[in-house]
């Protein structure tokens, strides 16, 4: 019963989405509000149907309805309650239903918030949203139906991929997909701007907070993905330049470029064409990311599956790219710049450079990701591109971007005078240089780490300088200290929200640098009672135990850890043996600290439990990456607050 009901709902939703997209576009073109109203009803119904279908699939998971193929392949009777819910989006079909549901949600929010405010652009934007929804619904009805029936009905299911049995699996996909789908809204408005020819600032103003929201969720998704990789995969890292990580990173890079280039258009009427192109690029890259994960054309640890879905996604990607770039070419004349670049030493050029570097980084990541295909197509040989390529190319770009992060917000518009430069940068440059020198004196011998230290302190100093100066100005106007600072944050929330996000990025940069430069690891095979040491820790192997859990057998080693400036603790890294998997899954045990994490992974062991191999890592400063994420969250929230101007 459930399969037919669910599939029926999705089919009706597809019909409605197509109808809505058509009527919204027709209503926009002929200026007939009745048509747009019909499209709105369709949009609301699509969202309602998607919600019901999603609830139905969740119910099928909770009720172990193995007559649904998707339920049978991604759960079994032993799957705990919590993971039966997250299992809903643990594989291809469910991830697309979650994706569509979010898109539907965004469409409804757009409808509620912008129906009245943007009469010209709104109907077109609604049409684009519904067209994208129709695409995802067509994937769900034809290529990857979540409600496909399984017959005969098995008594038990196969079970969820054990790596996905983790709390990160509720937050990571949700944040990532909110980011991915969120960029559909700016894209929809960009297309609306091109369709109507109103390519001025209106669409930018309407989408500013949408872009920040999407960007924020994408950042959060990437960070949670790193956290998941760090504490679940058991190799002690958080980023591997895997094609699928790259797929999520590329729209982040172009999206970041967009958030910055928008300010140039607002202020100087430049870069209209560029902004539209960046939004098209960002949205296309989110589609490219889904395509890459779901087409099986590139080998990756994340690869979902292959089959007809890939062809669907590629066709849609081609349609999106060709139509939107075609519109762009059609409106070419209207997109010309009104302002001009006055000087190389100016805020405009700092932002422009920021854009060039971000897009260059996105391009190199794209190139590295698809290079295996290029090489095979051109020369008939296969290659794989490893982390060294991405690091070598991107680290200099990222360091340059950090530098610009300090320059951009403070340097003068149009043309910076010598006095302006001295006033804004003399102190920060001094502080950065002193920090690097101090670091050198304290024993930092990695040139890259010293440079990163210099740059991050430089940028932090520019932010501190700006904030102190602005606070002082308010104090002189007779305000008290705390209200003055609070007022700054509240009344200039865009600027200071941006600064707080920058601080978050700086903290992340510090964490990444530290973990790359100073982490150490070793591996040792120990008899019971034997000890190994690393980085001031002594780790004693006390024995092995095992226990049968609801859906797997867990073997864990007990290790007593001393040293590292704290009381002895017991750590228990484990291995989990799932019947449906050919190799065991690592259960990492880690002790998190501000300065360093102690990270144990259980390797091979003898059957009698007398001997085990353990991998020990001391990962330094990794925690700051997650702290940086929290700071970034605060900054994004601040930037998203409704703008408020003080009454005169």
């Amino acid at each position, binding site marked *: 019963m459930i399969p037919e009901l669910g599939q029926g709902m999705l089919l009706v939703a597809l019909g409605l989405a197509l109808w809505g997209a058509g009527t919204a576009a027709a209503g926009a073109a002929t200026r007939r509000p009745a048509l747009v109203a019909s499209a709105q009803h369709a949009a609301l119904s699509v969202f309602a149907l998607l919600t019901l279908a999603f609830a139905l699939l969740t119910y099928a998971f909770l009720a172990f309805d193995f007559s649904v193929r998707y339920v049978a392949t991604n759960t079994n009777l032993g799957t705990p309650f919590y993971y039966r819910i997250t299992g809903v989006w643990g594989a291809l079909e469910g991830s697309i239903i979650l994706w569509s549901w979010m898109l539907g949600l965004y469409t409804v929010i757009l409808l509620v918030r912008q129906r009245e405010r943007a009469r010209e652009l709104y109907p077109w934007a609604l049409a684009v949203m519904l067209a994208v929804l129709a695409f995802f619904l067509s994937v769900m009805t034809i290529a990857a139906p979540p409600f496909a029936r399984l017959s005969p009905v098995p008594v038990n299911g196969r079970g969820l991929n054990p790596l996905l049995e983790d709390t990160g699996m509720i937050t990571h996909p949700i944040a990532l997909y909110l980011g991915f789908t969120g960029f559909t809204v700016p894209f929809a408005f960009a297309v609306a701007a091109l369709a109507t020819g109103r390519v001025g600032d209106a669409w930018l103003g309407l989408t500013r907070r949408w872009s920040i929201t999407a960007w924020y969720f994408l950042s959060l998704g990437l960070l949670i993905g790193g956290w998941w990789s760090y504490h679940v995969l058991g*190799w002690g*890292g958080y980023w*591997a330049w895997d094609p699928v990580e790259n797929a999520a990173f590329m729209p982040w890079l172009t999206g970041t470029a967009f958030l910055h280039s928008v300010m140039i258009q607002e202020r100087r009427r430049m870069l209209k064409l560029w902004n539209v192109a960046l939004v098209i690029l960002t949205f296309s890259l989110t589609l*490219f990311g889904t*395509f890459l994960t779901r*087409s*099986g*054309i*590139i*080998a990756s640890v994340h690869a979902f599956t292959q089959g007809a879905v*890939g*062809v669907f996604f*590629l066709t849609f*990607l*081609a349609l999106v*790219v*060709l139509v939107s*770039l*075609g519109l*762009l*070419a059609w409106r*070419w004349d209207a997109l010309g710049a009104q302002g001009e670049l006055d000087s190389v030493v100016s805020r405009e050029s700092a932002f422009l450079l920021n854009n060039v570097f971000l897009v260059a980084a996105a391009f190199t990541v794209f190139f590295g990701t*698809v290079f*295996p*295909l*290029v090489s*095979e*197509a051109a020369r008939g*040989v*296969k*290659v*794989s*591109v*490893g*982390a*060294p390529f991405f690091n070598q190319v991107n680290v200099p770009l990222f360091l340059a971007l950090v530098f610009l992060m300090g320059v951009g917000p403070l340097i003068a518009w149009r043309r910076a005078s010598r006095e302006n430069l001295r006033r804004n940068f003399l102190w920060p440059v001094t502080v950065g240089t002193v920090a690097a020198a101090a670091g050198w004196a304290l024993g930092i011998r990695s040139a890259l780490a010293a440079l990163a230290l210099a740059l991050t302190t430089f940028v932090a100093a520019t932010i501190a300088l700006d904030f102190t100066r602005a606070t002082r100005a308010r104090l002189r106007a007779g305000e008290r200290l705390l209200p003055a600072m609070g007022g700054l944050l509240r009344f200039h929330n865009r600027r200071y929200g941006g600064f707080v996000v920058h601080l978050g990025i700086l903290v992340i940069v510090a964490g990444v640098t530290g973990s790359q430069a100073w982490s150490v*690891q*070793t*591996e040792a*095979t120990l008899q019971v009672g034997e000890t190994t040491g690393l980085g001031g820790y002594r780790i004693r192997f006390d024995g092995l135990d095992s226990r049968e859990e609801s859906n797997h057998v867990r073997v864990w080693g007990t290790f007593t850890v001393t040293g590292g400036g704290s009381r002895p603790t017991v750590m228990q890294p484990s291995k989990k043996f799932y019947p449906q998997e050919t190799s065991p899954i690592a259960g990492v045990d880690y002790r998190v600290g501000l300065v360093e994490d102690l990270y144990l992974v259980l390797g*091979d062991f003898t059957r009698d439990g007398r001997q085990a191999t353990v*991998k020990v890592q001391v990962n330094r400063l990794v925690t700051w990456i997650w702290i940086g994420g929290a700071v970034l969250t605060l900054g994004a929230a601040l930037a998203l607050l409704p703008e408020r101007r003080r009454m005169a």
Partner: protein
Amino acid sequence: VRRRLRWLIPISAVPVLGLLAYGFRTDPRSIPSPLVGQPAPGFSLPTFTGPPIALEALRGKVVVLNFWASWCHPACYEEAPVLEQGWRAWRERDVVVIGVNIQDTEDKARAFIADFQLTFPNASDASGKVAIDYGLYGVPETFFIDRRGRIGAKHVGAVTAEVFSTQVERLLAEPPPG
């Protein structure tokens, strides 16, 4: 002229899309090698533990030539114990395992060898010449060389115990040279 040129923007996306479409025709995990059946390119390389090792000196033995790097995670980490076990199990039967470390730093390579307690000879191809001679695409890749010095098989990705024993036994079953 400018008005026409702008249509190059959408057109420029076509090759990229074509490339992605081409991706459907390929299997990212299967890699053919024109070297199979050809004589294995000779080399002489310094090892991490002492004397240099030369392929020519091993004629008459089955050679398992494995290219690896310490950053190659997880495949190289999965296969290192397999190679070590294979080396221990087959060395009595004239089978030699040689590791060739590429694109790596010396201390990380040494740490890798120590971590996995590798006892078979590991050489460093610092200039990358040997990797180029063998047409390497990435790591790990493993070449199984027969007793006449010809490449009998190539394996891409982590070597499993099964692949190791199948290939080595197949080459051992061939008649010895001369």
